[in-house]
């Protein structure tokens, strides 16, 4: 039970309950403004009936390397600690997939996740994502923690959309395809 609506720039004045969480980065103004000025239809929030923000997603759409395939990308997806385990991440992502498919005619949606974050990986797998490749030292800035390599490497996970009926964006050996960060 929550209001799903577009992310507005003045939500930045009210996202503290989400962004004070240790895993959520607060970027400079330019980051949020760039997303809103370019992909406003890929940025949404979930809000409680009281107006309190519960979580948000920010995404973009573009081409992958030299390929001609458009695809959607989940850049930031975050839910305030007190609103977790309510399925909010799923409904935010579902809408993003719908828009990436219908408006941006993307072939797939992808996202990056820390290899050690099993809870999130399970959740994304439940939503139809699978590991496409492993990116070395993607989160390197945080340094190697207790979990070693898994803490700084990222999985690039993909979910095919309607333009990829033969599921080219799925491969079973994705976890073994290791690339360096571009």
């Amino acid at each position, binding site marked *: *039970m*929550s*209001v*799903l*609506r*577009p992310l*507005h*720039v*003045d939500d*930045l*004045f*009210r996202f*503290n*309950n989400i*962004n*004070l*969480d*240790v*895993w959520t980065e*607060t*970027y*400079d*103004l*330019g980051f949020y*403004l*760039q997303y*809103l*000025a*370019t992909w*406003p*239809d890929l940025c*949404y929030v979930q809000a*409680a*009936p*009281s107006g*309190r923000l*519960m979580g948000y997603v920010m995404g973009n759409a573009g081409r992958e390397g030299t390929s001609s395939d458009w695809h959607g990308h989940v850049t930031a997806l975050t839910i305030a*600690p*007190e*609103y*977790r*385990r*309510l*399925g909010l991440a799923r*409904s935010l992502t579902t*809408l993003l997939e*719908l*828009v990436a498919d*219908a*408006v941006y005619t993307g072939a797939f949606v992808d996202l990056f996740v820390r290899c050690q974050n099993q809870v999130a990986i399970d959740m994304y797998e439940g939503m139809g994502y699978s590991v496409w490749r492993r990116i070395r030292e993607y989160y390197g800035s945080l340094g190697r923690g207790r979990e070693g390599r898994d803490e700084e490497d990222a999985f690039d996970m993909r979910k095919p959309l309607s333009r990829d009926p033969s599921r080219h964006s799925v491969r079973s050996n994705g976890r073994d395809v290791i690339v360096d960060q571009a």
Partner: protein
Amino acid sequence: MERQIRAVYDALDNGSNKTAIAACQKILKKQPKHELTKTLLALALVRSQKVEEALSHCDEVLAAKPTNDAVLTAMIHVLRGLGRQKDIVSMFEEASKQIPDSEELATQTFLANIRVQNFKAAQQIAGRMHKQFQEDRYIYWHVLSAILQASEPSTSSDMRVLLFKLAHRLITASPTPPYVNADRFHLHLVILRELGLFDEARTLLESEVGKSICAASLACNEVRRDIWRAHGLFEEEGQKAEARITQQNDRNWLEFLSVIDAALLQVESKPEPDEAEKADRSARLTKTRQLFTKLAEDDGLKDRSAALALVELEKRANFYDLSSDPHGLIDVMKHYFELFGDKACCFEDLKPYVSLLEGDDLPQWTAFLQSSIDVSIDNSNVLRKLINAQKLLRYNTPELTLPEESARATQYTQQYLESLIHGSGLPATELQPADDLAILAASSFISIWQLSNDEKHLYNAAALLEFALTKSKQAFQMRLLLVRIYRLLGAPSAALDHYRAMQIKQVQHDTLSHFLISRSSTFSLAASGDLTYHTECIESSQIYISNLQDTGEYIARAFTGEKYSQIPEFILFEDRLEYSLQRDLVKVEDLRIRLTHEPISSDLIDMELIELKFSLDRLHYDNRDFDILANYQPRISASTNDQTLLFGKPEGRGWLTTFLKIYTRAFQQASDLDDTVEEKLLIGDRPKQSSPDAKIPLKDRLHHHLEKDLVELTTDELSFLKYCSTLADWLEPYHDYARPPPAVVLAEAAKLTQAKTGQPLKGVDLPPKNGTAATNGSSKKDEEPPAVVAPPTDLAQFFDDMKARFEAVKAEPSPTMALHVASLTQEACLFFLVESLRFKNPSAVKTNKLGALTQQLKPIRTAALNALRDISASLIKLAETEGTAERRKIFVDGCSPIINSNIDHDFVLNVAKKVTDSRKKVLDGYGKGMARLITTSSK
């Protein structure tokens, strides 16, 4: 040449402004008229803060009316750096006039006008651009500029309609249909909504394209929903919503509200229904209830929308007296709690409904919740349910008494400690499921402190939260609360540590820095050289610089990328940061801090005066986030935020206005800059005067303080205000007499500029030197000086009173109040220095025949310094008694409630050490800083 210019650019990119300046000067030696080099030189100078020198180069380039792309681009940066946005507009207007075929220049002119919010000019330019360049997007630029103009507060309602009609005409005449992209479509809908053109909106929205846009665009769907509802189509909207819920599994809460609105629609329109209508209403209610019940059953624990919609439906049914079941509401609430009681948000979900329970339902509700508390906490689901039950019970507490509140504090603490086991396996980055019990206990201790006025209960709150933070390192809610508590306890360095641990950055500074900076001059040790708070002020103000640089840039990008839905919001966002209340609160607080550290000079006074006056003319936006502080206090009690405000007083517009007036008045008296001089010397654009009071002459405003403003001041701040007013009233005639005339001030400024830059000051025509205006800073007056009268006795008395106040509060365990009184006394002394600065100059005194005045100033100065001397010595002495084993013992003994609940004694002792050490440091530092100030002021 190209290579040399490349080198200048490289130097600028690397931030080596010195190199850039040298390279430019080298080029200019050979080619003194090279426009681009001159521009880059101006840029390097601006970036090295050499404003006067930059100005002359900048003005030369402007005068030559540049059209070269590189020059124009660099000039944008130069003029922005100088705060001269309006000159950017005229520069592009000129360039565009010279090369009318350039689409790029026209675009820049349009965007520059948008930047200064001159929407009318922008609208005209966009209109011309469409005619000339035949691009469809310029129609939309034209349309949006008209809408932006219509939305300005200064636009009359008639004009607003006219502008929207113009926008409508333009958009319907556009050769391409609006639905080629969602943002154009959105803009069209906004116009139709404003003009109430429902049929046209309906045609658009019900077309296939319209439907598919709304399906994928939340923004368009939002406007669509508004339009539907504004036309009373609740029934239809309800059906659409129901279809979305049942067929597409949409669980957006707004859809559920639409279904409820449709069900209870006619109730409001017909307050006295006949029998048939009553039956109809009851049938609708039953039907909706059935729909939601079925959905809730199907969704189970997967989604809580339908279950909560049932609660909302019963609430409204009760409100309209439609329900036949008197216990309908409590039944669905219980059901909701049973299903979702183990979700952290359950308390917040049910909170709005609790206050509606009455009669028998209340004890029943309490008993029901109680059954979730009297349980053994076997797993984290039971724990979360227990926490929700505790919060809901506490929220509904009918009265607060000491014994009951103490019992609750003990229970929360014990349950907290018992439940820690359920989070023991979690990684250090995770929050503990039991955290909120610790916050509940702390909230309880805060209430007991308020009831008993005994500070030891705050020790318990602090020590327990510190303990909980060792278990849950990322619990920012606890840190926020600790920041508040430590400030109340007079342990500012402990507060600062927690504030910093939260790593507040970027836009969060605007919304959260109030936790640290509000009235922080009380704790600032700047007088003894510790610039911590000054640094925090600077850091938290960086966001306003980024806003000025970035937001405008992205407004332009949104135009070129045709994301029209974002533009009005970006413009408002930029204003909200630019005119942020917190921004000016920080500015004033920083000024109060800096005055204790920087020598008081006429330069400082002149600079600050201009800023202060700008702030006074502003209408401020309050973006501060107070809701972030968890509030689990009973609804009959004040919120945690209100309970933990320093000195129990909020700091807002009233406080800011009062302090701005106090400072402006004193600085204006001390300054030689009157309005005509300021106008000539001002470099950047004058900011918008958005405050409604800006129309009242400043002089009148400065003399009056409104009751609604003064309620935000503490008693001691009110005394300080009275002192400042008395001082200013007394000295006003002497300042006005002795202030040199504008011509003399300008001549002096011109001389300084000439000496600095070798160029004359632009726009200042010096009067011929015929002997009437000497340039030594003084001039002969025709009239006699005002007779010197003795100062009001209140002035010296103020310092005696403050000394007595200090004596009265210094024994309080928390040094916060003593520091408050001490800092205001010190501030009063500094004000005296500001107000008497002019009369320290012997030649000015002599020329103005005000020798008698200096004699009258002496006794006040003596009283001020004596008071400071006593207070300073007293603070240093107090510091000696802090941080001792004895003080730590008092703290630890006070913590017996939590120690008895099994919080380790040694742990509490460490917290005691932290608090008392911090007190010692601030008392000692403040006392010594004061002593230093006395020495420098006695000179």
